[in-house]
């Protein structure tokens, strides 16, 4: 009798489950194979205002282009301003011109991504029009190796740094081809982790920054601006809740430093 009832319940469960599973199977196929119903419609209107803005205001303005990763973009600022919000505030004391910012920063961008972005040619006109180009790149290149063990870290670091420097070199070349005259500001890397990092990590970070600086300063109008020193003892004040990006105060401090470094150039231009 028991076997009989087990048999019936098995049969019932099997039938119901079979139907449910068949529906799920059908859905799974649809989801992974169905054609895309929404065409990329909102791509066209978004690019037009940008280029319109660029062509109309040409003479009496000072144009700044932000390139690179999330720091360039302004990620982490709780007031949502970042460099594009603060640089005009600090620059405006030095020049009567209108400060125009173009923010092309992309979260999580690595050096190869920046190079691809520039080589795609979409930014060529913007680059050519810029008076100052601010680059922040490399943080995402170096971040991936932090978790490795000491031995692998050293090796990986060399590999990453070599490829990074290669990409950066090409990137600068692309920028200089489009615009030989603009000021180029490169933001160095800082160390957002207060306790976790060892002396060894700091050494690697400094090596990275040093080599970057060498490369950037080869360009006559390039300037490497360190951030490590500014943030080292101020992590609590300048780092955002995500523990990685600068916060509003951090972006202000960095903007202030940048504006001081290029003060005379801006006044003279």
């Amino acid at each position, binding site marked *: 009798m028991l076997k009989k009832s087990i048999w019936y319940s*098995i049969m019932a469960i099997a039938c119901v*489950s079979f139907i449910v599973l068949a529906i799920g*199977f059908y859905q*799974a196929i649809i*989801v992974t194979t*169905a054609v895309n119903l929404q065409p990329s419609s909102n791509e066209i209107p978004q690019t037009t205002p940008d280029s319109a803005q660029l062509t109309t205001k040409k003479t009496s303005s000072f144009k700044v282009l932000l390139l690179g990763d999330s720091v360039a*973009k302004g*990620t982490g600022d709780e007031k949502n301003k970042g460099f594009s919000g603060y640089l005009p505030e600090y620059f405006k004391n030095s020049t009567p011109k209108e400060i125009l910012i173009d923010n092309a920063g992309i979260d999580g961008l690595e050096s190869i991504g920046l190079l691809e972005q520039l080589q795609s040619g979409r930014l060529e006109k913007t680059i050519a029009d810029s008076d100052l180009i601010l680059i922040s790149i490399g943080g995402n290149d170096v971040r991936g190796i932090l978790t490795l063990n000491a031995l692998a870290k050293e090796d990986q670091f060399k590999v990453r740094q070599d490829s990074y420097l290669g990409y950066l070199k090409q990137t600068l070349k692309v920028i200089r081809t489009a615009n030989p005259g603009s000021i180029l500001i490169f933001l160095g890397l800082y160390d957002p982790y207060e306790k976790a990092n060892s002396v060894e990590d700091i050494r690697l970070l400094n090596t990275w920054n040093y080599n970057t600086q060498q490369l950037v300063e080869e360009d006559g109008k390039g300037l490497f601006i360190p951030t490590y020193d500014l943030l080292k003892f101020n992590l609590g004040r300048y780092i955002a*809740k*995500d523990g990685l990006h600068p916060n509003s105060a951090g972006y202000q401090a960095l903007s202030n430093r940048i504006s001081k470094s290029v003060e005379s150039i801006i006044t003279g231009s």
Partner: protein
Amino acid sequence: MKLFSLIENEVIKMISKKRLMFVLAILVVLISVFAYGQNHTSEKTKAQLAQRMGITATDDWRKLADQQLIDMKNRLDSPYMDENSKTSTRVRMEQLQYNVDNNINPLEQSAAKFTTKFMEQAIFLFLPLLIIMLAADMVSGESSSGTIKLLLVRNVPRWKILLSKYLTLVILEVIVVFLAFMLSAIISGFFFGFGGWLAPVATGFKVIAGKLDTSSVLNVPQWQYSLMVYSLAFFVAVVVGSISFMISILVKSTAASIGIIMSTLVAGNFLSFFLSDWKITRYMFMVNLRLTDYLSGSFQPIEGMTMLFSISVLLGWTIGSIIISFVYFTKQDILV
């Protein structure tokens, strides 16, 4: 004799042989171990995160999430983003918004997440092994114990006997998938709480020209996602079941048939290394078992390998082995 009572007979035979109980016990033990391990790992991850970020980022996840939401919104507004990454950003935003709205820490595990994860991991080796346990001696067991004679002397055509055996196998496959689902939902519920079935999960990845295409990614509720995962698991169960059913008829020795199908499955893991270079490997059934990877987008995109391709390959193997099974079984001489 009617087919229905033949199936009943077969199912009761399976229950008496305690095979199903065995499968049940294995599932209970393994799921408990996995759930405990998963619990342990997530505690550790949280501790590590807290240490690394210097702040109690795990408790402050709300502020972090709000910040990320603002960032992603800005990202969508940026004219320099390409359409592909926009869609995935939008999907990420929806998920995060759901977490914020429902006060769910994204680092937290849930029964629903675990249940889905479990089958995603089990689909290519563990589930097939369970199915093999049931399927491998359905016919060969009768041959080696001699009972096949008793079955065949009755006034029932041979194909009907084999069909009843095959349908029994399908029923048991449904039961195994059902049990796997129920058990992992219940057991992991004790560890992580029983909720999480409505949380959005991203799916809809496609491979276009050998690249992962995210332009049509969308969020589905977790219950629907895990339904899809378990449906694919059932399909895989039927495929593996059919193949081992065929081998069990061809080989006649239970031990040999289990050995053959198991080594084939394990070989599949090696073969998948050659997938991109060695074209013929993709027509093997073993390398196409990870169907759920197409749902989650977690596979290495390979030119020509899509959900439909994998399903067609598997379907081909299934139909092939059913045909061979029936032809061979009805034609063979049975000497005991």
